[in-house]
């Protein structure tokens, strides 16, 4: 249930942990993989500090009797009419999962540019999750060479995803796609019919476009707000004003892991970690770790 709370209230799954492990299949070949977010949060999340300079955290309480609640006291409900809920258990949700929910079965490969960009939703990196990584490397190499994406559906955290598996620089990525019924057309929205315009009117815009044509530069995509925030923080740090100390956060709390760099975690998982996948396989894990570490250098 703790997992569900994170997903519903936090919006996005926490990025650093691998939160889905499963297999990709193509033909009869299976590729064990673990999935990590490929994007990290926009800006540093600010902490909340109370009047006594101690950290503040959130706690779930019942909206009726204000009683503090633990994860075990909380269930999921679907609101069928105002204020009336049907309780749905984790077991029930699991039972309606498609049979192959732990499997990304690639039965179709499409040209990379054959997917309308409007469909893309979110990117995840896939890292080898099993004893060997040969099938992973083979799939990545061939897909990249053929410039194709593999298409499949799978279930993760109580939601079904349509996904495009893309290979780049020898690394597999899962891009979740929107389902067709989530995409709106101009007619759905009720936009007016396309109006006729004269060539002269179009020409005015063409000229402006031509005047401002430049190459794409990702450096332009930096976030001004985070920059301004960091400037302020460093100025205050230098002057030693308003600095407080927070006691070490308890382990069961979310925040503790945030300082870990997602990039570092990913690199480690790609480099040689058969130890990453959530499932415990002590004997095999160790052996293959040694194996890949030796090969790496």
């Amino acid at each position: 249930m703790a997992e569900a709370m994170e997903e519903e209230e936090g919006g996005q799954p926490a990025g650093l942990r691998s939160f889905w492990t499963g297999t990709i299949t193509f033909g009869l070949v299976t590729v064990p993989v673990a999935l990590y977010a490929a994007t990290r949060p926009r800006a540093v999340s600010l902490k909340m500090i109370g009047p006594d300079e101690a950290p503040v955290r959130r706690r779930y309480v019942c909206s009726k009797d204000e009683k503090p609640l633990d994860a075990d006291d909380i269930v999921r409900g679907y609101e069928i009419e105002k204020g009336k809920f049907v309780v749905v258990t984790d077991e029930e949700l699991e039972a309606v999962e498609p049979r192959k929910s732990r499997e990304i079965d690639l039965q179709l490969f499409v040209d990379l540019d054959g997917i309308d960009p409007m469909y893309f939703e979110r990117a995840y990196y896939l890292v080898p999750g099993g004893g060997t990584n040969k099938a992973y490397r083979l799939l990545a190499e061939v897909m990249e060479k053929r410039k194709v994406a593999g298409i499949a559906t799978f279930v993760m955290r109580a939601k079904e995803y349509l996904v495009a598996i893309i290979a780049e620089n020898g690394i597999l990525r899962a891009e979740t796609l929107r389902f067709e019924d989530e995409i709106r057309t101009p007619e759905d929205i009720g936009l007016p019919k396309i109006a006729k315009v004269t060539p002269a009117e179009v020409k005015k815009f063409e000229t402006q476009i031509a005047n401002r044509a430049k190459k794409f530069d990702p450096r332009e995509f930096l976030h001004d707000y985070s920059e301004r925030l960091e400037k302020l923080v460093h100025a205050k740090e230098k002057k030693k004003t308003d600095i407080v100390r927070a006691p070490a956060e308890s382990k069961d709390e979310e925040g503790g892991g945030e300082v870990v760099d997602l990039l570092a975690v990913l690199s480690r998982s790609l480099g040689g970690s058969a130890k990453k996948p959530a499932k415990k396989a002590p004997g095999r894990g160790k052996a293959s770790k040694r194996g890949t570490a030796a090969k790496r250098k």
Partner: protein
Amino acid sequence: MAARAIWKGVVHVGTQEVPVKLYSAVSDKAVRFRLLHKTDKEPVKQKLISAETEEPVEYAEVKKAYPLTRGRLVLLEPEELDELKPKDSRDINITRFVGSGEIDHRWYERAYFLGPDGNQKAYFAAAAALAKKKKEGVARWVMRDREYIGALRAEQGYLMLIVLRHAEEIIAADALQAPSGRALTQKEIEMATQLIDALHGEFKPENYRDEYRARVMELVEAKAAGGKPKLKVFRPKKVEEPDQIADVLAASLAGMKKRSGTRG
């Protein structure tokens, strides 16, 4: 049903102005659950408490702090944070135009259709010019106290604005090292290529439905009607990676050919 505009602004393309309304181009359809208190089935809410004393804390008393290293934090006054906020504006400024496709989908966060807000001629002329020149504009604007970067494109004769992720959010694949190991054999590559080519087709989004969403709704409706659903939990089989990938690929191909052979 016509959608409601979520924001109004003015696109500035050099000296040209295009007043627009913003509409979400996607609608989230995932089943939404509420968290409930198990015993009385009342929705839960969140309260702020001190992590030390567990005493309730009023929101007005909370200060924001930026975490530094070694457990130190810098307190930030509300006025200081207000000053960092971007200036409110209705302007969508186009800083440059790049070739269509130069900004790849990894930057995309969410798509919006723009609709004309008054001057229809300017609106459709801008869309026509973008399509003709095969360009998209890099747009910057402020909406509800947040700065956005977007791509302005022509889509089906209309203007579309795609909110883009910021550079620090993206972990590029070339910043990572690919897994390595013993070289792949020519035969393995050849068999995998054949299999992928055999499975090659066209992406047809209409072929995919969110079946899970439909099943969850069925479950909810059955329970609402007083039914007790039977639970059949599927346990995935453990899989082992085969040693001879090339052979397995060959077997997959043979299987496919056989199936298509009997069909046609």
